[in-house]
């Protein structure tokens, strides 16, 4: 089977040199190179590919947006994020967006070839030095999410409605009261109870907690 590879990078020279080099491999064919300078819908003009090698350092979170875009397509490509760095937090975000592998740009081309073949077979590749940290981080987040779920479950339906207003950006008690048809005093009480139950000190913190929950 020939692996169809698409390369998207901010540096044109990198994308094109890599394309030339990959074309030397018998089992790979480069279906396109995208010289990306900004994020956005990049794939509208792209050929279907089995593996996408994406610049993990695109501005505006571009690589993760691209992963999300790819995973929404039929017969979706497997994404390899290539980056100058390998902070576990960034790797976790990429995995969450759907990336199948993370390779540092200071690894060798042989490494990259191995990873391309691996992900084409359905494997997942992370820098071995970071795998432990990545797994720990994911486990920690999962524990935290469970704890948040437990806290959120303790809210009454009314309190949840107030919290939903906060999450939509409505912060003023008056506005919340109007929206929910409650008195301002009642809203104040709800807010106090929400913060106490969730163990947080600000509306922002309360909303952040619901986001973690939804993220899971």
């Amino acid at each position, binding site marked *: 089977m020939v692996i169809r590879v698409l390369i998207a990078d901010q540096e044109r020279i990198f994308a094109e040199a890599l394309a030339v080099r990959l074309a030397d491999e018998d089992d790979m064919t480069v279906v396109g190179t995208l010289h990306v300078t900004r994020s956005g819908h990049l794939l509208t003009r792209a050929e279907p590919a089995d593996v996408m090698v994406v610049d993990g350092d695109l501005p505006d979170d571009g690589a993760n947006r691209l992963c999300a875009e790819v995973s929404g397509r039929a017969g979706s490509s497997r994404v390899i994020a290539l980056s100058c760095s390998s902070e576990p937090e960034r790797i976790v975000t990429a995995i969450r967006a759907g990336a199948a592998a993370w390779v540092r740009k*200071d690894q060798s081309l042989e490494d990259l070839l191995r990873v391309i073949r691996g992900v084409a077979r359905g494997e997942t590749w992370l820098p071995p030095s970071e795998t432990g940290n990545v797994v720990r981080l994911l486990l920690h987040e999962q524990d935290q999410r469970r704890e948040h779920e437990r806290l959120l479950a303790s809210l009454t339906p009314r309190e949840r409605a107030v919290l939903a207003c906060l999450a939509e950006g409505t912060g003023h008690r008056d506005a919340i009261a109007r929206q929910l048809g409650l008195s301002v005093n009642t809203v104040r009480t709800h807010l106090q109870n929400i913060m106490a139950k969730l163990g947080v000190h600000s509306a922002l913190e309360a909303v952040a907690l619901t986001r973690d929950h939804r993220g899971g």
Partner: protein
Amino acid sequence: MRLVLCDDNRILCEALAAVLESHGHRVVAIAICAADGIAAVSAYRPDACLLDLRLPDGDGLDTARTMGRCHPDTKVVVLSCLTDPSTVAKARRIGVAGFLRKDQSPVSIAAALNVVAGGGVAFDARTVLRPGRAAPSGHQPLGTLTPRETEVLRRIVAGQSTRQMASEMNVSVSTLRSYVKNILAKLGAHSRLQAAAIASGRQYPSVA
């Protein structure tokens, strides 16, 4: 031409080496940091060193200066995505034989190296004539945030307080407040809560 490639992106070096070799050049060594680059130039005395300016262990221009001083026979050709006129001017003063942008094809790099091999200089016209490219202005207001502002916004979404952000980001509370002020202005938000809602896609920004 015998070449040393020096760029912290090893994959780029290895891929580019393959292309340059197919165009008649010979890559004798690849280095991914300034110290290794200087050592490789000393060891191999190449005709030219293709040098990135952003290296993990040092400034590329200093590296170019060292190479030029210690090994005047090796021509230094900068290959960089930094192309603001002052960097190009500094590189010229150091005496580099070329300044090539990374947003061009590998084939044109090979051709520029041929010019250098023939005793010429290779300054990409755009690095000389055009002022540094302005950052592309995104259509979405989120795209217009600076990296620092983006970081603050991410922390706002995570529910952090001003004091917490200031201490973790190692800036003063008043600096942090001014970041927040800029973020709110750019997003057209009235409060951090609203900014957080916009950032997490729960509300559309009110500015175009």
